[in-house]
């Protein structure tokens, strides 16, 4: 029997299923949203459905948005230094409440030792300053393809 190529399976999956749904969120009181807006636009331009929460989001508000929007991916943008607190709390709440896996990625100013801790909490990847938006988009697509 003819084996369809991996690429074909991927294309078929993407074409038959709904677009990837991504929530971009700004937790806490940090208002610096240039990065969040840039990445929201990049996800949208890549054909994903983007829900940008805006600023001043609590842990509960973000988790509720992810669940209600049935999101596949949660992108957190934090530049205030409170990344460990929010990374831990949000990953914990999602583990408790989500019925399926949600990819959590983070962007912002995060020192290397904190990235190791965030990955232990369940953040899949942390994208630092200077990251190409296509690198982030590709990361998310690759994860989806591997699902």
């Amino acid at each position, binding site marked *: 029997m003819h084996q369809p190529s991996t690429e074909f399976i991927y294309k078929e999956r993407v074409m038959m299923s709904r677009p990837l749904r991504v929530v971009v969120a700004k937790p*806490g*009181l*940090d*208002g*610096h*949203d*240039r990065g*969040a*807006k*840039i990445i*929201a*636009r990049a996800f949208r331009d890549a054909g994903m459905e983007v829900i*940008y*929460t*805006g*600023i*001043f989001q*609590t842990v509960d508000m973000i988790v509720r948005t992810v669940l209600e929007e049935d999101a596949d991916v949660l992108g957190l943008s934090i530049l*205030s*230094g*409170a990344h460990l*607190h*929010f990374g831990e709390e949000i990953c914990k709440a999602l583990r408790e409440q989500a019925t399926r896996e949600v990819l959590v990625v983070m962007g912002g*100013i995060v*020192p*290397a*030792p904190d990235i190791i801790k965030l990955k232990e909490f369940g953040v899949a990847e942390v994208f*630092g*300053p*200077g990251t*190409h*938006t*296509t690198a982030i988009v590709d990361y998310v697509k690759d994860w989806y393809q591997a699902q």
Partner: protein
Amino acid sequence: MTNLNNNAAALDVNAPQEASPELQNWRDTTLAASLTRMPTRKENFDTLSGLPIKDLYTADDVDSSAVIGLPGEYPYTRGVHPTMFRARPWTIRQVAGFGTAEDTNGRYKYLLDHGETGLSTDFDLPTLLGYDSDHPIGMPEIGKIGVAVDTVDDVRLLMADIPLDKVSTSYTINASAFVLIGMYEVVAKDQGVTAMQITGTCQNDILKEYTAQNEYIYPPAPAVRLVVDTMEYAAKMMPRYNAISVSGYHIREAGSTAVQELAFTLGAAHCYVTEAVKRGLSADFVAPRVSFFWDIHNDFFEEICKLRAARRLWARMMKEWVGAKDPKSWMMRAHSQTAGVSLTAQQPDNNVARVAIQALAAVLGGTQSLHTNSKDEAFQIPSEGAIKIAVRTQQILELENRVADVVDPLAGSYYVENLTNRLEAEAEDLLRKVLDRGGMVQSIEDGWIQQQIADASSAYQRALEAQTEYMVGVNIHVDEESKLPFDPFVLDPTVGERQINRLQSIRKSRGQAEFSAALKEIKEAAVGQQNVMPAVVRAIRAQATVGEICDVLRGVYGGYRAPTVY
């Protein structure tokens, strides 16, 4: 807007210039021959803000109707003081703030010991947004990006041993600025400083919070009311204090162009002054104490021209549009800071070079005070070593490079005058567009300004990724080693606990009757559309907290959810 005299028509800077016969001959012979041998690096050149630029500027490119003038005179293109830096150098003013008031006070003393001449304070997010340190939403952020302030006792500790009649201090705070202005006044007067001696500045520019930095509490209209309350109060109670520093910095950092930075900042300043006039105050009562704050980005000439254009446009707006009579109302005094957004976490030593060149542009543009970023400021609270290099950079400019010895030394350069004219005209066009569509508040509430900035920001990001714009060390000349080479600044982990303990012990010990009466008075003033400041100062003296005072007005004005635009 019938009172807007249209001078833009006289400055039709985009009209094609007829080349002189001599220039045409040069193009046909010398230039053409050279281009045949060696074509230009690219077809089109432009400024960082996207204004097209030519290969060569000559006298033909300088519109003779644009007034350059002389320093210290209208329209102040060449600077607000006749002597500029020959009499007094610019103020070295590094912003600092982290942890508790004691932590930041220690940093101030370090800075003053190393030759800083003015102070500037960054506050933490709970303080900026009017929450007490023990509010659940604020607790993860205590002392992280600035100093935590709950009560006037914190400001007293922050300013300990600093003579407020000699050292001018700037507070970087906006939504809750009215509380911090009151606290500053109380602490200064308790130090024995008289009303006439109190100097300093509060940023207090709420409109750019909605367009750029996003640290707002109330809806835009009542928030502007509060700003005007502080302007009126300060003009009466401490007339040498700048109650506002209208800021382009954050707009530019959010990704705007230089033209947008100019237009939206001058638009905000115009809004505050005209609102004060609507209240029955004269423009000359408030405008002399309106100060400004600019971002000094990477395009060296564009930034110099931006400061020159800003001064001339503001002078014209105040004199011709608003009808201010006092020359002090026409003068734009400005603080500048090198562009944080231009710093790179990669190869951070390169930031020293960026900052030095941006600082030179600020000086050549005629700034009154300057913050030079520290090389590690892209990713953390600056370390002491990095701050010292930043301060020394300014001292080298002042003492070694002789760039402060001639007033406005680039005036008369064909390119500089041409670009000054174009930036002024472009900014005026954009500002008129905002006024025509209902003004700043309207254009913020419907998200129009935010959309303009987001579009510019996104275009720049695309250009970086397409490598038509460069950041050395980020998208070109990249090191293989991608690990960020720095030791992170570590905040004392006891900051939150120390701050909350102090706050809660004050809540227990203060006199409840006076506290409650003062809060009630704030509410009555706000509901009755009176100036809230006298009641706010009474509450501060009764040891009311930032959060408690802001909560009273939350009850009157409500909160605000901005349109999300990207």
